[in-house]
């Protein structure tokens, strides 16, 4: 992590990866697979925010699914019921989610200790109640149906491939912004909090302000992801924005590892693809696919514990350890990489290479 701010520009590998991600719809024609890869992009958008919040700032959120929900319902309500252009609903989704994040963060983050985690858990529980009860806005238990696809300046993102490009374009911009945040002063301030607040205060870091900034940014990104989600799926159900989704997002940040954007992004890709493994491997027997769905949440819970105990720095740490070992044998990560698609492992590379160059 020492070279965090040292590189003046993105390594060329990341441009290569971006190009590869952009070309996928030209190569893959399977519509379902494209949709799954679009979901990866939606989750990556949330994971970027959580990487800043957890991985850099050391704050735990147990309620990010609620911000995704706020974004989804805001965008759907504004475009369908009020009739605003999609881009207005999209922007409002980010702003309202950020405002909700600010309201929650202001009291919880003024204090030492991890009160934010419990406040977000309570917030998530309340919001999932509101999503069901506020029928006039959200459609209640039945959900919000018939949401038109996103459209910008008359162009409708109807086809899976165009939706894919839209989602990944937003994710790419967010990743670029987050990368710039982490390289400069705000990112270092965030990272200094993960190490310990006393040291951060001693170095003149505005501890509370930094925490609140990270939380608001992550809430906004979750809201934007929700807005895109409502357009991609065309339907919003309250059963999506529940505690188990929040735990999944948190698991991605924890497993991805602290002090890195690439780790959480890679973890997100891995876990999202795991959920839709039957899309990647069409020949997979149905019982295995069913059990995978049944035990998905178990996997998150147990993976969180195992990672904290055995690999406290997550995928990022494993990757760096493997790089510094520099032997061709490789670790468990390398095996896992081979098992997943190119989509899953590519985002982890830029930082890994950077580390390699640095040492």
């Amino acid at each position: 992590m020492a070279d965090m701010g040292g590189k003046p520009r993105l390594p060329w590998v990341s441009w290569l990866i971006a190009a590869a991600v952009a070309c996928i719809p030209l190569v893959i024609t399977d519509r379902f697979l494209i949709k799954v890869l679009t979901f990866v992009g939606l989750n990556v958008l949330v994971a970027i925010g959580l990487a800043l919040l957890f991985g850099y700032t050391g704050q735990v959120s147990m309620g990010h699914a609620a911000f995704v929900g706020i974004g989804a319902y805001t965008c759907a309500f504004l475009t369908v019921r009020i009739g605003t252009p999609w881009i207005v609903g999209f922007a409002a989704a980010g702003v309202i989610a950020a405002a909700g994040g600010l309201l929650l963060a202001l009291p919880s983050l003024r204090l030492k200790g991890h009160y934010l985690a419990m406040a977000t858990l309570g917030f998530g529980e309340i919001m999932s109640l509101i999503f069901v009860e506020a029928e006039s806005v959200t459609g209640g238990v039945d959900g919000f149906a018939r949401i038109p696809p996103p459209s910008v300046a008359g162009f409708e993102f109807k086809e899976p491939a165009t939706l894919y490009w839209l989602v990944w374009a937003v994710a790419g911009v967010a990743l670029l912004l987050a990368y710039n945040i982490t390289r400069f002063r705000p990112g270092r301030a965030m990272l200094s909090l993960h190490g310990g607040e006393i040291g951060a205060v001693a170095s003149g870091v505005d501890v509370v302000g930094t925490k609140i900034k990270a939380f608001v940014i992550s809430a906004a990104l979750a809201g934007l992801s929700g807005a895109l989600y409502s357009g991609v799926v065309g339907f919003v159900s309250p059963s999506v924005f529940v505690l188990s989704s929040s735990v999944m997002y948190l698991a991605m940040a924890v497993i991805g590892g602290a002090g890195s954007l690439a780790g959480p992004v890679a973890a997100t890709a891995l876990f999202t693809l795991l959920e839709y493994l039957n899309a990647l491997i069409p020949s997979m027997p149905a019982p295995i696919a069913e059990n995978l769905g049944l035990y998905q949440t178990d996997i998150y819970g147990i993976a969180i514990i195992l990672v904290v105990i055995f690999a406290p720095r997550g995928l990022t740490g494993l990757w760096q350890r493997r790089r510094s070992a520099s032997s061709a044998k490789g670790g468990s990560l390398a095996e896992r990489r081979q098992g997943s698609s190119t989509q899953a492992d590519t985002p982890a590379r830029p930082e890994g290479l950077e580390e390699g160059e640095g040492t």
Partner: protein
Amino acid sequence: MSELLQFLIAGVKNGAIYALVALGFTVVFASTGAINFAQGEFFMLGGVLGVFFLRLGLPLPAAVLAAVLATAIIGGAFEALAIRPLSAGDPLKIIIVTIGGSVALRQFALHIFGPNEMIIAPFSSGPPIRFAGAAVERQTLWIWGLTLVTVACLAIVYQKTMLGKAMQATSLSHDGARLMGIDTKKMVTVAFVLSAALGAVAGLAVTPLTQTAFDVGAGIGVKGFTAAILGGLGNPLATVCGGIVLGLLESLAAGYFDPLYKDAVALVVLLGVLFVRPSGLAGLMRRGRG
């Protein structure tokens, strides 16, 4: 008037449950400095295991005892397997592990006991007791009785036994306690065993009134934590008061406004306390004295 009395009775009944869960939070917080996110799952396990042992054919007292013991053992095992391997003194890691643990416990309960709601018959049958125009369910009396006995036992353990004094010392300073020859790691285990037992008692006592299921833990966890924060996350007496106050606020909000608001009360109180008086009721009392 009798309406108000009815709300107050309901409030103190729920408040007693929150108090027990809140005590579980404070016991673990005292020994680790971290919030135990699996606390609500101990509450869930108490009720669910109670149903399980009753269905095995155990008589009620034996089933209650078995459920509390089993939950306490699970609490201790969780600490030994997942918390102890962590390097001490990093609350963030402990919090993350307890989040993972709460997910795992909830999912295990789902796989073993199924997704359906379960219920226990009231501990003693009979019509509600009439009192000044209000009705008191017999189970409510059981809840109050069990809470009183549990809190009294906890107070005796803390004040009178060597174990309790060792735990108090550990909560003041791990290093200091270790210098006095106290096995602080064991004290952390004891804290998890105690907090699991506290949660289980609460979960058992309330199941005849509210039913239970694998997913009741998260909600009660937030309420119990709110009560603990309201009490200042330290002083046991203030914690119990925090529970009762939260129960009363909820029941008055639900009674006079809309039952929908009941669950929002805890979050409002939680954020309100954090914003206005982070030291909770205990801080208020201390200020009053000083």
